[in-house]
């Protein structure tokens, strides 16, 4: 089996095995082991030359995200192993949770790897089904509402994406063989000769469809609830991975339409959705009381920034967008590790109930403080580099748009700093009744610090190979 499919089926095979393990400790360790295996396979894939293989492809655009996805999947499974006993699952839910986790990881990887847009659509759909069941797993009214909203809105979203995929094929049909009809590479090859009107129609549906999954305003309303109600590790993978896969699908669509000079320019649509996301999220951040919803809104802001970057287009802005997505994945999942553990320790996820973490839980508190500063765009993390590049690209290409963008970023940063002060340095709030547990504190904080170290390392000294890869990717997406 080629390595591309091996990664996907390794995770799905793991899901089958995990469905049979009722014991919490064994299941969490097995889950971490499967994720570690997937990470090694992803590293092996990175060592191979780029190739198209059947329905899959590896190229400069998706390889960085496959690596990030496998890395976050691994660290999240470690975090999950350290904290899952706090969720109070019975053995059925332990099985369901771990099975859904690996089904999601496999589908997520397939969505990134897919060359065939039909396969990509199926993968996104499987990832949606797996995450819906994970969001609902607590079976509280709030969890059901979050899952139902997620399900219906994303159901409509991916239905529209399928319609877009069908129309895209209709556009390319006179120029392609049946076998290659939905291949991204083949579509890119003939995009310039396709009927521009049909391409426009396809892009509108693909943008709305996958944009819903990427959480772009005004299609975002499922996102905060879905992030706040599931088990803690799910927020990390939803924010860190699923949004990237959806944004990559938008980029694939954008590059096809962008390759046809007569079709409508896709950039302004992404600019508008991106700017709307940044501005609405920057204001919404000030009104949040729930810590996990607060950081979910911050994800909307960051996906908006990435969409804005890709909307500007050109190598510099695209590079900023790609760096931003990678930095956001790493830092936002770190934040959810910190916030999730803090919420477990304090017995509540309201911002008002989480205070003075630095005093009561130093490793967690300092890690969370640095992570929040990093997500706000303070140096040295990768997000500082990407936001700086984005602002300079915006100032050069569209100065009148750079002003509201900068305002949005600053407003969001101020909200983040306020919450940082309250949660990390404010008056300490009492812990929940459960006895403190030293090893759990360490095990939960380790992935957080590891993510911070990687994000800072990439921000300060990005390896030459990765930088070359991203520069190539920024050129490919056009």
């Amino acid at each position, binding site marked *: 089996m080629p390595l591309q499919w091996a990664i996907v089926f390794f995770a799905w095979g793991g899901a089958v095995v995990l469905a049979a393990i009722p014991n919490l400790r064994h299941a969490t360790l097995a889950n971490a082991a499967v994720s570690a295996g997937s990470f090694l396979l992803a590293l092996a894939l990175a060592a191979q030359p780029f190739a198209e293989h059947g329905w899959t492809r590896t190229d400069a655009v998706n390889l960085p995200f496959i690596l990030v996805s496998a890395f976050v999947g691994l660290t999240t499974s470690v975090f999950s192993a350290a904290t899952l006993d706090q969720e109070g699952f019975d053995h059925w839910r332990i099985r369901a949770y771990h099975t859904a986790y690996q089904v999601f990881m496999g589908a997520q990887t397939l969505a990134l790897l897919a060359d*065939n847009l*039909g*396969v990509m*659509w*199926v993968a996104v*759909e499987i990832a*949606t*089904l797996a995450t*819906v069941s994970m969001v*609902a797993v607590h079976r509280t*009214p*709030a969890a*059901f*509402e979050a*899952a*139902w*909203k997620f*399900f*219906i809105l994303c*159901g*409509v979203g*991916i*239905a*529209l994406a*399928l*319609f877009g*995929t*069908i*129309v895209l*094929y*209709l*556009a390319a*049909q*006179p120029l392609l063989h*049946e*076998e*290659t*009809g*939905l291949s991204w590479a083949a579509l890119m090859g003939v995009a310039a000769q*396709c*009927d521009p*009107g*049909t391409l*426009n*129609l396809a892009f509108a549906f693909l943008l709305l469809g996958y944009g819903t999954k990427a959480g772009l305003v005004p299609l975002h309303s499922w996102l905060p*609830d879905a992030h*706040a*109600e599931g088990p803690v590790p799910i927020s990390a993978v939803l924010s860190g991975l699923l949004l990237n896969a959806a944004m990559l699908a938008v980029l694939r669509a954008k590059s096809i339409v962008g390759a046809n000079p007569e079709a409508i320019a896709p950039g302004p649509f992404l600019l508008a959705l991106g700017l709307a996301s940044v501005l609405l999220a920057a204001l919404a951040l000030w009104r*949040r*009381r*729930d810590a996990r*919803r607060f950081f979910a809104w911050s994800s909307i802001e960051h996906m908006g920034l990435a969409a804005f970057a890709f909307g500007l287009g050109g190598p510099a802005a695209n590079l900023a967008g790609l760096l931003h997505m990678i930095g956001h994945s790493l830092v936002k999942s770190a934040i959810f590790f910190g916030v999730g553990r803090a919420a477990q320790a304090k017995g509540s*996820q309201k911002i008002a109930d989480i205070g003075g973490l630095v005093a009561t839980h130093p490793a967690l508190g300092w890690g969370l403080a640095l992570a929040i500063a990093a997500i706000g765009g303070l140096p040295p993390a990768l997000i500082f580099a990407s936001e700086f590049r984005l602002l300079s690209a915006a100032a050069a290409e569209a100065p009148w748009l750079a002003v509201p963008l900068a305002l949005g970023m600053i407003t969001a940063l101020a909200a983040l700093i306020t919450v940082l002060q309250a949660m990390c340095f404010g008056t300490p709030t009492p812990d929940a009744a459960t006895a403190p547990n030293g090893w759990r504190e360490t095990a939960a904080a380790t992935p957080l610090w590891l993510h911070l170290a990687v994000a800072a390392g990439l921000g300060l000294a990005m390896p030459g190979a990765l930088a070359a890869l991203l520069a190539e990717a920024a050129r490919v997406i056009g």
Partner: protein
Amino acid sequence: MSFGQLPYDVAHLLGGGVLLFSFVLLYQRRIGAVINAFATQGTLLAIAAAWQGYVQGAPGLYVTAVLALAAKGVLIPLALHAIVRRLDLHRTVETALGIGPSLVAGVGLVGLAILVVLPATEGARALAREDLALALSVVLLGMLMMITRRNAISQVIGLLSLENGLILAAIGVAGMPLVVELSTAALVLMVAVVAGVFAFQIRERFDTLDTGSLEEHRGERR
């Protein structure tokens, strides 16, 4: 690959029939009748898929037709009837927008679909583009139904009929690869949505399927 007059007419007739039942879904006032109208739409869709399979010489579409008939013509409607009985739901349709205005909006959406699709797809073959206009109309009417109905079950049926529109689009595009796989995957999603009504036990938890009341369970109520 040329189409004679008869294949073209029959494909149009079946596509138009599917669209007609989208309107029927909009004006029903009782849940049971809505479900039956959906079953009829699913059956028409299955016949349309089989006809396209015959016309295009694509045996894979017969699989789509059989699946559509079994799932949308029979099994999903039976499951929906069972949900209404078991969860003892309101048997009347609660509308957010009245029946009359809904129908007017529906006609407007069909006009919109035709105005958008026909000029945009001049490069494509006539059957494919007219089929696409019909399919887009069904998709938009499905969305309209989701917006204008307050019961979760009617919203689910709106989503299901939206998906009928997708399948209508997919079968109308001759030679589309993976059409069977994609339509099956879409069907799995819809079955999961129907199962979700059961699994989330919305009736027991929320006392009403009115999705408006779900808002009270948000984590940030004041």
